[in-house]
């Protein structure tokens, strides 16, 4: 009995199991399941979907290349930050994946027709504007794509664009928004103002030693100085070595003799021709006939250049009387050159056939190339020899420098033995100094543990392709607060400005109160050689007004009941402004020109769409399970 029950249950269980297995394999495919098991752990996943590293690498490289292109034709690759393209690539692929997932879960799809249409419209697949199946297949094979994978890719692109359009292209602007923007942008304010300059007081204020001490004590952070070093160094310089290379007259002459020996004399021939183009046999026969006729006239004494102008079908040379310029024996077709070789000057050939047709050729000039004289070659030879000598010297001295500086505690020995003077720099920080101290490898070496802390000679550092140096730290100054004596001058200037600023404000405020009290402000101002500046109906973009004052004027409350608004403004530079706002007029649509209205509409609706899409992506990322992002961001581009 028990056995029977067990058998029964086994039967039920096994058929459920088998059924399930069949269903699973049928729905998802064997390869999805087995494939997943056999792969190593996925690197970057978004809600469980993997983004292959190879894809990230590919996009990051493309972005880096785009950046290089943007840097112009002489890219400074040291400025290139490839981690930038990597971050952009990772983020872009995550966003794409999120959008793909959203498309799937919201039931978006692309019809077969839409994909067909897109393929037919792809210009790369078109011959003379018409879709060409053979061309399309070739293009796909070239890109390593199968038709199915390409169609899938197109489907994804179409879906992505549908989503983008749904969010970004549906932002709008209501008439209300446009009116409010016009009111703000074209708001007009009328005002008058005067400025009490702090410069009035900078000379008259007094700064005591106690003031300076107090300021210094309370503002130590301002006087922090980073760690600095100064170095001495010896420099091996190819250009300087060239000066040291002595070249004797014998060497120069020997070098010239080598040149003479290597020189092959050449004969240059200048040719003119008359051409009858021909390729078929009939054409050739006809051309020959015509050429023979012209040849007869030439033999009878007619002028070649005239007849060339008249008969030659080679338009360029015909204009010049058939002249083709010089050849060293290989500029023209072979039969042409062969004929030329056998001719004497001013002789005209019988008709010659080449791939272009039938020519009548005239040799107009014969010239033997000559080798330059020793005197003309001397300078260049001297330079060559010196350079060769300097190169050899540089290599051998470099080896010596390496050994000597490694074995010596300082630069004295290398300097004397190699006759390289010791040079020094001033103190510089990790951001570098001037001259040699501006070179990155020099800075790195100077602040390295070996050199800065242990006081050893550096290795030989190649600064550029002509210069190598070895350096030694002279002085190492740890990070410190600069002493008061050094910064006293700076502090005094600062304090003087502060006090002058306070005085300007004091005077300005007293004037402000005078205006409020209805005193005779103009007399007061006049006594200080100051006066009001009045501006009527200015907008925010008013070029005549200091932007700081503009900002102030446009933040002031609106005057009410005919009363003006008064306020003071301590400006960045230390001056003090007093502003009286008289009235505010809101802008209206009438102030907005047509082009401006269009750009406002464009700006507002694009911004609306962009903000909405950004919010959508941000929200999706916040809700997604993204694994391995940091690892991918940190990963190096395998090519760089």
């Amino acid at each position, binding site marked *: 009995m028990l056995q029977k029950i067990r058998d029964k249950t086994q039967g039920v269980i096994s058929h459920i199991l088998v059924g399930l297995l069949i269903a699973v394999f049928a729905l998802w495919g064997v390869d999805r399941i087995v494939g997943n098991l056999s792969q190593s752990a996925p690197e970057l996943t978004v809600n469980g979907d993997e983004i292959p590293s190879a894809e990230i690498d590919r996009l990051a490289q493309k972005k880096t290349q785009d950046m290089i292109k943007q840097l112009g034709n002489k890219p400074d690759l040291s400025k290139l930050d490839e981690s930038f393209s990597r971050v952009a690539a990772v983020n872009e692929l995550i966003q794409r994946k999120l959008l793909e997932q959203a498309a799937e879960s919201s039931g978006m799809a692309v019809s077969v027709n839409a994909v067909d249409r897109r393929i037919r419209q792809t210009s790369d697949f078109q011959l003379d504007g018409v879709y060409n199946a053979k061309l399309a297949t070739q293009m796909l094979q070239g890109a390593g794509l199968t038709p199915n994978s390409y169609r899938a890719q197109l489907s994804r692109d179409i879906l992505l664009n*549908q989503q983008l359009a749904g969010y970004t292209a549906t932002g709008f602007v209501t008439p209300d928004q446009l009116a409010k923007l016009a009111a703000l942008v074209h708001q007009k304010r009328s005002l008058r103002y005067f400025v009490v300059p702090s410069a009035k007081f900078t000379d008259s204020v007094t700064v005591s030693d106690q003031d300076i001490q107090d300021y210094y004590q309370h503002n130590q952070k301002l006087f922090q100085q980073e760690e600095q070093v100064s170095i001495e160094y010896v420099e091996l310089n190819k250009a300087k070595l060239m000066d040291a290379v002595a070249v004797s007259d014998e060497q120069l002459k020997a070098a010239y003799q080598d040149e003479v020996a290597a020189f092959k004399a050449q004969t240059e021939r200048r040719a003119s021709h008359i051409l009858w183009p021909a390729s078929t046999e009939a054409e050739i026969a006809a051309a020959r006939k015509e050429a023979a006729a012209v040849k007869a006239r030439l033999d009878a004494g007619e002028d070649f250049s005239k007849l060339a102008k008249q008969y030659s079908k080679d338009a360029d040379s015909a204009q010049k009387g058939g002249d083709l310029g010089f050849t060293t024996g290989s500029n023209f077709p072979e039969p042409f050159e062969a004929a030329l070789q056998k001719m004497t000057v001013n002789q005209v050939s019988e008709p010659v056939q080449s791939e272009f047709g039938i020519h009548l050729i005239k040799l107009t000039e014969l010239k033997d190339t000559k080798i330059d004289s020793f005197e003309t070659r001397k300078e260049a030879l001297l330079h060559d020899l010196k350079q060769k000598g300097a190169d050899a010297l540089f290599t051998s001295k470099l080896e010596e420098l390496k050994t000597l500086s490694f074995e010596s505690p300082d630069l004295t020995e290398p300097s004397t033995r190699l006759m390289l003077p010791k040079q020094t720099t001033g103190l510089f920080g990790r951001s570098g100094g001037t001259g040699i101290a501006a070179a990155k490898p020099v800075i790195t070496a100077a602040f390295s543990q070996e050199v800065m802390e242990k006081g050893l000679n550096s290795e030989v550092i190649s600064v550029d392709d002509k210069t190598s140096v070895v350096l030694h730290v002279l002085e190492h100054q740890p990070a410190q607060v600069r002493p008061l004596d050094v910064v006293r001058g700076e502090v005094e200037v600062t304090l003087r400005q502060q006090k002058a600023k306070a005085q300007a404000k004091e005077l300005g405020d007293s004037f402000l109160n005078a205006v409020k009290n209805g005193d005779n402000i103009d007399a007061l101002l006049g006594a200080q050689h100051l006066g009001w500046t009045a501006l009527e109906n200015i907008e925010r973009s008013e070029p005549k007004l200091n932007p700081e004052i503009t900002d102030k004027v446009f933040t002031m409350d609106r005057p009410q009941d005919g009363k003006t608004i008064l306020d003071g403004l301590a400006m960045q530079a230390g001056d003090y402004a007093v502003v009286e706002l008289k009235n505010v007029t809101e802008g209206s649509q009438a102030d907005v020109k047509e082009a401006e209205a269009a750009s406002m509409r464009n700006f507002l609706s694009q911004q609306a769409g962009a903000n909405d899409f950004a919010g959508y992506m941000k929200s999706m990322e916040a809700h997604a399970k993204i694994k391995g992002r940091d690892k991918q961001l940190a990963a190096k581009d395998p090519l760089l």
Partner: protein
Amino acid sequence: MALDTTEEEQVEALKNWWKDNGTSLLTGVVVVLALMFGFRKWQDSQSSTVGEASDLYQQIADMSVNNVGKVVTDDELLAAQNVYSQLKEQYSSTIYTRYAALAMAKFHADKGELDLAATELQWVLDHQSIGLLKKADPELFLIARQRLALVRLAQGNPKGAIDLLHGADAGTFVTTFSETEGDALLQLGDRDSARAAYQKALAAIGEGNPVLLKLKLQDLGVSVSSVETKQ
């Protein structure tokens, strides 16, 4: 099984097992296959339905992409309306009809047809479910909500706008929600609350363009330079 069972016995046992269970197993397999086949068939019909909706939407999407920052012409609007009514009649449960409604709202709002724009946006808000197995992203409805608030404001209904904006958690849309709320509060004459709303919007702006918000704040007495130094 016991160790002494012979091969014959094993075969016999297998035969018996098959006699007992074979029919039910086969039935199981057939049923599963039939279900699967049916599911695939259903999926195909679904996707071809969606494909048609997708094609229709594409026409409206193209039109909205071509008219970013522009007002559509009457002819374009008429064409869009034709396509849109097909979508609404035959595919009203797809995500595409909602995207299309957003586009229609844009066409109308740009033209100043505020009531029509409001109708489309309200329809989106009232039809968030798109079927059993599918789910529209909730962000879509937050966006529709804020856009409807903009339209309400333009209709001269700032209270209605504020009610809409308070009707949902703004999530990652704090900047747009708060800016619109600020506009509504200002329209109601509450400058202090408007200023606070704009400041909230600016604080959440991230990489967005702050120019307009700064302008609005400046008009409420917040100096542009003070905003800059704070950031």
